[in-house]
């Protein structure tokens, strides 16, 4: 039983390390800031998630695991806010995403962004 938990724990931590590595790799491979942020989001969802789950298995059922889960919750609530702030800052600076397709005018919705002048069209 102890061995099985140990194996599962290391499996999850290796999986988390793999996704963290993939995120870092994507960060280097992607062409510009917006696509890079997508690569980074693999790290701070799957990477962090599996690592913390693996650590919970190591720690066993107790306060340490609970604190690790608080940490995970903190990540999951702050990461989107940071991503959103970063994307907004880029748009305000006038950095235009390179798009393969712009569907903003095609969905029947009005393009009513307050940043219209500075956003790519």
């Amino acid at each position, binding site marked *: 039983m102890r061995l099985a938990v140990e194996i599962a724990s290391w499996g999850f931590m290796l999986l988390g390390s793999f996704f963290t590595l993939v995120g870092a790799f994507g960060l280097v491979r992607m062409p510009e800031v917006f696509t890079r942020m997508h690569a980074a989001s693999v790290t701070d969802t799957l990477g962090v998630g599996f690592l913390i789950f693996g650590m919970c298995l190591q720690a066993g059922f107790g306060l340490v695991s609970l604190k690790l889960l608080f940490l995970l919750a903190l990540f999951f609530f702050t990461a989107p806010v940071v991503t959103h702030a970063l994307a907004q800052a880029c748009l305000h600076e006038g950095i235009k995403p390179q798009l393969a397709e712009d*569907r903003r005018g095609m969905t029947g919705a*009005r393009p009513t962004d307050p940043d219209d002048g500075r956003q790519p069209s």
Partner: protein
Amino acid sequence: MRYVSLAGLLFAFWLALSGHYTPMLVTAGVVCAVACVFAAIRMRVADPEGHPIELFRGAITYFPWLFWEIAKSGWSVTRVILHPSLPISPTMTVVRASQKTAAGMATYANSITLTPGTMTVGVSGDEFTIHALVRDGAIDLEGGGMDRRVSQFEGAA
């Protein structure tokens, strides 16, 4: 009711983080939790937006669903990153959010951003501007599956 639940939650958080259960520290925890609630009331953040107890029941099924979505799209983004030809097709689109409350809309916007491959870059009124790594991600969001799931979560309580 909302204040009592907020105080209880803060006290539980205190207990979990401290790990010491001597009468003196537990009393200090109670005092701190109550003081924090009063501060929150004064700051006007102890409202349905700051402490959405209405959403707690829906969260029990919503978060597992969201984790599964994150795992699925995380895997597809991983495949894109590791693909030798890097097959990205960045797409921007606008989707409409059908949630009624601010907390519901924030949940939807954050869920979009949390799932790898899509992110919310702007909000105006009930419309979100979305940036997606591949075209299919944007099309999926336009289909509104996640929007309906978040609205269901919002209405579950």
